[in-house]
């Protein structure tokens, strides 16, 4: 199914969304900070991915992709992966902080 990879990423966002609501992680609420953390990661890891694709370290099965290919033969889903997974990681850290406020993170 061509939506498979996209659905996996959607599940990650849907699964972590309750953290923002119920633990008040305020990650999406601080969008500039979120973008400032995630976009450089997407650029660097996207470049890593493009280099790996060029070197034939791995390849993607187009049967599971929507079919949008970005420059460097990068599937759209891969770029989204580098945005979604870091966002989920930040939500997780903020959820830990919400439950354990005495565990300092370093930005207090």
């Amino acid at each position, binding site marked *: 199914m061509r939506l498979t990879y996209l659905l996996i990423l959607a599940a990650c966002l849907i699964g972590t969304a309750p953290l923002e609501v119920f633990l008040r992680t305020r990650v999406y609420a601080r969008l500039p*900070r979120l973008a400032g953390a995630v976009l450089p990661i997407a650029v660097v890891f996207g470049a890593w991915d493009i280099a790996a694709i060029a070197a034939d*370290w791995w390849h993607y099965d187009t049967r599971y992709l929507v079919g949008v290919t970005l420059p460097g033969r990068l599937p759209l889903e891969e770029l989204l992966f580098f945005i979604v997974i870091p966002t989920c990681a930040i939500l997780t850290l903020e959820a830990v902080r919400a439950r354990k406020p005495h565990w300092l993170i370093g930005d207090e």
Partner: protein
Amino acid sequence: MNYTLSVVLGVLAAGALDLIVLQTRLLRRKAFWTAYAIVLFFQLIVNGLLTGLKIVRYDSSTIIGWRIAYAPVEDIAFGFAMALATLSLWVWLGRRAARTTSGADR
């Protein structure tokens, strides 16, 4: 260069970003390792799906060959470097905002 060597360098770079460049020192914080344990659990599921369903296939010459939940062990290191670098940037941005403003909208 292969995937194995590149993830070793990636982990070292992320560690240097955290400990030296941004000095967020997440590697010494309980909150980071707790969050990472949760992230790792879900990364194993996502990596396992991507590899198990063969959405992505690896050239056998670029990996060491050890697999955990279908995915090459290198993916765990890749995911660790990504999580550490992301969270280091996130905390650094928050720390910088806290120092320059009242911190009300960090």
